[in-house]
């Protein structure tokens, strides 16, 4: 299917090693192919928007990258590491962080503790056992709180947050992890237009030092990001290019944007 070497599609120089390399990934559930020979290459420092109809396989793709779902076939490499051989924790340790489509936070921990747990640190039990929270960590956590505008909720249990607030907290958790690659599933869902703009800002800033894959249905948001767009459909890539380019593709209009 789409197994052709994809490295050239992005126009990256051959010499440069891609950060993330998905090739011919297929995943099926009880016979239904959620991913069907999906290939995608992400360069270091790149931000990529992924769009596509509901059920196209965007979330499943993230599941594969983060080790939640094992692909039936295909290759998934993060630099030299073969993602299909690692479990969630190991992949996270490699530097891949994720925000889920449905916000998931530690409801029984305070907002602040949520961030504290996410801060980049040695995660081995033996280390954690004797770790004490240093001032610098507090500062970082508080900084992130400020950034996601939850300072007022610092001591509240995360379970008490509204839907939108949880979205923000999850973004905060992602930031705290300082991952090299951020996978962001629908960050603008449930946000007001103004908040969406701020999110755009935030992602841009992050992208200065890190790579990002973002999934979103909000075209205004995607447009504002102004990055290369990959359109998924039925588990494989339908189109790729600038938003301008793909949104004029009749197939994309047909299956996704509508008339």
């Amino acid at each position: 299917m789409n197994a052709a070497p994809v490295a050239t599609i992005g126009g990256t120089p051959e010499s440069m090693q891609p950060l993330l390399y998905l090739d011919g990934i297929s995943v099926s559930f009880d016979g239904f192919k959620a991913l069907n020979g999906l290939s995608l290459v992400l360069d270091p420092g790149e931000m990529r928007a992924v769009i596509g109809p509901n059920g196209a396989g965007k979330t499943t793709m993230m599941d594969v990258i983060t080790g939640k779902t094992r692909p039936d076939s295909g290759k998934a490499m993060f630099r030299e590491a073969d993602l299909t051989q690692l479990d969630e924790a190991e992949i996270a340790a490699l530097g891949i962080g994720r925000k889920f489509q449905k916000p998931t936070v530690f409801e029984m921990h305070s907002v602040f503790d949520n961030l504290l747990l996410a801060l980049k640190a040695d995660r081995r039990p033996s280390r954690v056992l004797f770790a004490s929270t240093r001032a610098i960590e507090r500062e970082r956590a508080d900084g992130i709180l400020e950034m996601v505008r939850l300072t007022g909720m610092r001591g509240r249990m995360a379970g008490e947050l509204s839907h939108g607030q949880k979205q923000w907290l999850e973004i905060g958790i992602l930031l705290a992890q300082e991952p090299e690659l951020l996978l962001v599933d629908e960050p603008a869902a449930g946000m007001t237009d103004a908040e969406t703009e701020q999110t755009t800002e935030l992602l841009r800033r992050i992208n200065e030092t890190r790579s990002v894959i973002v999934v979103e249905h909000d075209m205004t948001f995607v447009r504002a990001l102004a990055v290369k767009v990959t359109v998924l459909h039925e588990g494989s890539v339908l189109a790729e290019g600038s938003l301008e380019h793909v949104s004029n593709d009749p197939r994309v209009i047909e299956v996704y944007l509508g008339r």
Partner: protein
Amino acid sequence: MISARLGLYGSLLVAAVPLALTIAVGLLSLLPADSALHVPGYVVTLLGKYLAYALLALSVDLVWGYVGILSLGHGAFFALGGYAMGMYLMRQIGTRGVYGDPVLPDFMVFLNWQELPWYWYGFDHFAFAALMIVLVPGALAFVFGYLAFRSRVSGVYLSIITQALTFALMLAFFRNDMGFGGNNGLTDFKDLLGANLQAGSTKAGLLIATGAFLSFFFLVCRHLTQSRFGKVLIAIRDAESRTRFLGYRVERYKLLVFTFSAMMAGIGGALYVPQIGIINPSEFEPANSIEAVIWVAVGGRGTLVGSMVGAVIVNFAKTVLTGTFPEIWLFVLGGLFIFVTLFMPRGIVGLFTGLRTWRSQPAKVRKQLTGRALEAGE
């Protein structure tokens, strides 16, 4: 949470209680019997039993309250620790057994065992036995946990296989061919480290030792749960998979805590046996493990203090009720369990310390505080 509110000094205070209490009771029991302050031996043994149970309850609370592992087989670790101690005590009997065999315990003599099975070797040394008291439960928990956590067995599935484990052990220890005394278990103990077990001073010493261990482990558990480590544990309890995505190797955390908790339970069992004077396979009965869980729930899950309080209160109630209302005590005890569940959702401790903060909790969180939802919807 509650012990979080206790703060460091509060916790130290709590930790001091078992130790102080046992020292006091232990010393008072040594006074002459006609002294007004004399504590009868009966009370010493009872208290010792309660506190040994409290240690078991503490170990259950650590895994259940903080990591969400509802172990219905912790009694097995308790019993294994008890058996290790029992084997040492058996070997101490020496030629004072009824058949006077210098090596073989009585039950082996009368069932015609010719020689001591290999797994009894070494138990004549206290150091070895002490090692086994933590090692055997620990190793079992490690192997079991390694397999279970690696393949991500969780929830009721884990609960039920822990139950299967203790049930299988019970059947195995019931077998006379196993060489652990079958149904009658190990009994007729004479002395421990050279001290006569029947002597008042030995009993007092054992009691104080139990109190000391309990205090010590309470503090250790407090540290485990209050530190960053404890926060990770609670995160695992509430959202295991999310924790993984943050890069925590969940199975290692679980394994560590589970194994540690099993060792703690083993020590509890080892302290229990010389005070009670018998260890037999009924300690492995699934119902016993369930009871331990219930002590924790009655006292207040996830509070450490609650588990100890629950163990003491439930067992104290049992002592009193079986003596005073032998015909209806089950109604009272069963009723108590129902009452606590319905009207004290955070257990006895929750009633005292958490009342104010509790009321201010939003309903949803309140629910979560008292138990994780099995169902997808809630």
